């Protein structure tokens, strides 16, 4: 009481005039100030992070928000949770008085440097020169303001950015709204996610079927969401995810969908996604993206990519804005019938039929299996050769290119 030390109240960083008050503990304060300083200097990742912290004032964002992870609940009604933001993980406490208190900030204050070292995700522009793809880091993290710009969301394990740009080019040129020649002429923007582990696939099946849960790529997804948000006024941007990039794109679309952003001029395509395309199509519909005849392309051996294909077909038929017709659905169902799952399912159905179990009326859940059986039978005759051709193409592409391509 008689001490000379002045009493300091915890700094209130947001919600002082409206919304719920957000305070910060003295331990976390210096890091917060550092972040604000970086944000004022124009570091876009820091701006995103500071804004993210301030948004706590509008309530605990949304429970659905994928980058908020619940933590321990304490006695007395306080609750801890953490928020993942670019270059920063914030642990926040929700007090019983309905105010928020930022407990710690674990920040990579040199995030920008790490981005330049290609250790953290970032946006690059790729251009074709002298038969090679060269990339350039974009400091502002925004897509070039050029109409019809193509943006690639790459898988994680190609190596450094230059290698990635070189390796994914063939995949990008398969997108229905672009050609290899156009890409070479105009270049493209590349969202790069460096990571040692694979995204999705059978190796991490848990995340492959629920791409929104994959915490390792949240940082990348938030940066991509910001890029997409800033690009919303550029006409005709095409977002192409290839392999594991599908998970990053799905998460980014989810973040934007949660904020009611619309990207009605843009298109999206997934090349051989390694995570559930059904989750992606749902988010794409919410954003109002233009979807071409083909939303994704999978080879017959891509287990995960084909897995929810029937659900994708159903979801696309249901969506009013999607220009997807019954005739498309029929063809896609037959294509699905040729995939590994389709063949397996039709095998099961055939066995069931032969053993007399199918003597009963076909139950509703069996309809997809029967459909795929029909599909598989339809292609089995003349299509057997083609199926074998496709199989070699996806299992041994080099062998296929050398010995089979163009000879059938």
């Amino acid at each position, binding site marked *: 009481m008689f001490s000379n030390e002045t009493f300091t109240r915890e700094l209130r960083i947001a919600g002082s005039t409206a919304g719920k008050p957000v305070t910060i503990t003295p331990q976390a304060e210096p890091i917060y100030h550092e972040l604000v300083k970086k944000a004022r200097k124009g570091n876009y990742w820091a701006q995103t992070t500071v804004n993210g912290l301030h948004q706590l004032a509008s309530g605990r964002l949304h429970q659905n928000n994928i980058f908020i992870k619940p933590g321990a609940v304490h006695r007395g009604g306080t609750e801890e949770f953490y928020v993942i933001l670019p270059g920063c993980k914030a642990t926040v406490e929700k007090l019983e008085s309905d105010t928020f208190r930022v407990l710690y900030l674990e920040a990579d204050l040199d995030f920008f440097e790490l981005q330049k*070292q290609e250790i953290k995700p970032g946006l690059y522009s790729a251009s074709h*020169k*002298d*038969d090679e793809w060269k990339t*350039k*880091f974009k400091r502002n993290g925004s897509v070039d303001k050029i109409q019809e710009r193509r943006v690639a969301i790459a898988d994680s394990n190609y*190596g450094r950015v230059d290698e990635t740009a070189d*390796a994914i080019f063939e995949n990008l040129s398969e997108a229905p709204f672009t050609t290899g020649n156009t890409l070479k002429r105009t270049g493209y923007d590349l969202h790069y996610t460096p990571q*040692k582990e694979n995204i999705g696939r059978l190796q991490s099946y848990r995340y492959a079927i629920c791409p929104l849960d994959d915490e390792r790529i949240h940082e990348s997804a938030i940066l991509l969401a910001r890029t997409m948000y800033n690009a919303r006024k550029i006409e005709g941007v095409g977002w192409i995810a290839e392999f594991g990039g599908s998970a990053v794109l799905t998460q980014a679309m989810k973040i934007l969908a949660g904020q009611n952003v619309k990207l009605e001029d843009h298109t999206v395509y997934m090349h051989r996604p390694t995570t559930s395309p059904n989750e992606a199509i749902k988010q794409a519909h919410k954003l109002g993206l233009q979807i071409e005849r083909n939303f994704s392309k999978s080879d017959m051996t891509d287990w995960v990519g084909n897995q929810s294909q029937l659900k994708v077909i159903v979801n696309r038929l249901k969506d009013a804005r999607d220009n997807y017709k019954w005739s498309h659905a029929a063809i896609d169902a037959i294509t699905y019938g040729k995939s590994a799952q389709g063949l397996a399912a039709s095998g099961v159905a055939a066995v069931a039929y032969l053993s007399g179990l199918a003597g009963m009326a076909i139950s509703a859940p069996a309809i997809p299996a029967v459909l795929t059986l029909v599909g598989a039978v339809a292609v089995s005759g003349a299509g057997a050769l083609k199926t074998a051709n496709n199989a070699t193409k996806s299992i041994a592409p080099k062998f296929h290119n050398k010995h089979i391509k163009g000879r059938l």
Partner: protein
Amino acid sequence: MRNFLKYSGLQLRKVETPVTPVGPDFESAKRKKIIIDGAQVSLILPRHDSGRRKKEKLEPKGDHVRVGYSSRNISNFIKNEAWESWPILKRVWAFYGSWFVGQLANINFSISAYRWKFQPENTSVFHPKIFELAVTHFLNSSYGYETDEGVPWHQAPVNWQVIDSLPVPAAKFRVESKLGYSPSRMQIMQFPVSDKVIVKIQASFGQTCPAHIGILGEEIRDEEMQALLDKVYCSVQLDFGDIDKSGLRNSLQVAGDATLTKSFAPLKWPVYVDKYGKESEEIKKMIVSGQ
């Protein structure tokens, strides 16, 4: 012979740096002969092996490459439209770490032919000074204009070496790019095969593992890669056979004592040149506003 068990493409464990990746065997590689615009270029090239990720290779159709008839490549040169280029060959050689760490790096190797459409009239690139002029203009118009907030992005030619083993003026150098922390090095050898056409043999190193593990050239050592590349460059031979060499003879006579410069310091960049090789304000305006 590369030890396929020790240096396999299988990735079963994580990399511990430092590590020296090992690539294809040079001794068992075959000599490749390509006739470009009448001149026979031959060099020893290991087979294409792009490793884990598929990358297309490019091989000439047949032995003869008629420059000017095949499809023209689109290159992102400066917007002065001075150069035409034709890709001829492209191969990738993967390099693997020892005992199941998988592929770590690769060399992207390519051969292409170039022509300066606005080369001064009645000159031949067989003349050492014209060749130097052409190389300078080539570097200026393909790399000299690129900047990162005013700082030139590339530096070239670095480590200029004159190659005496060929009957024409020939040189080898590096183009270094130092943007941020991702320095990339490209090695280029250039020599003329006819009065107008220059052949470029280019190789660049790529890292196929993420940057957390280490940087190629530092923790991931590139000695084996450099050694292979040096052998490939040493194996380059040029033979004009019995075709008309009057152009070559004439220009070498005119050249007299003129030889290629032994030292060529890196050019002063950024520079904005027009199609004739002169500095141009117009091009500068166009590029600066476009960036």
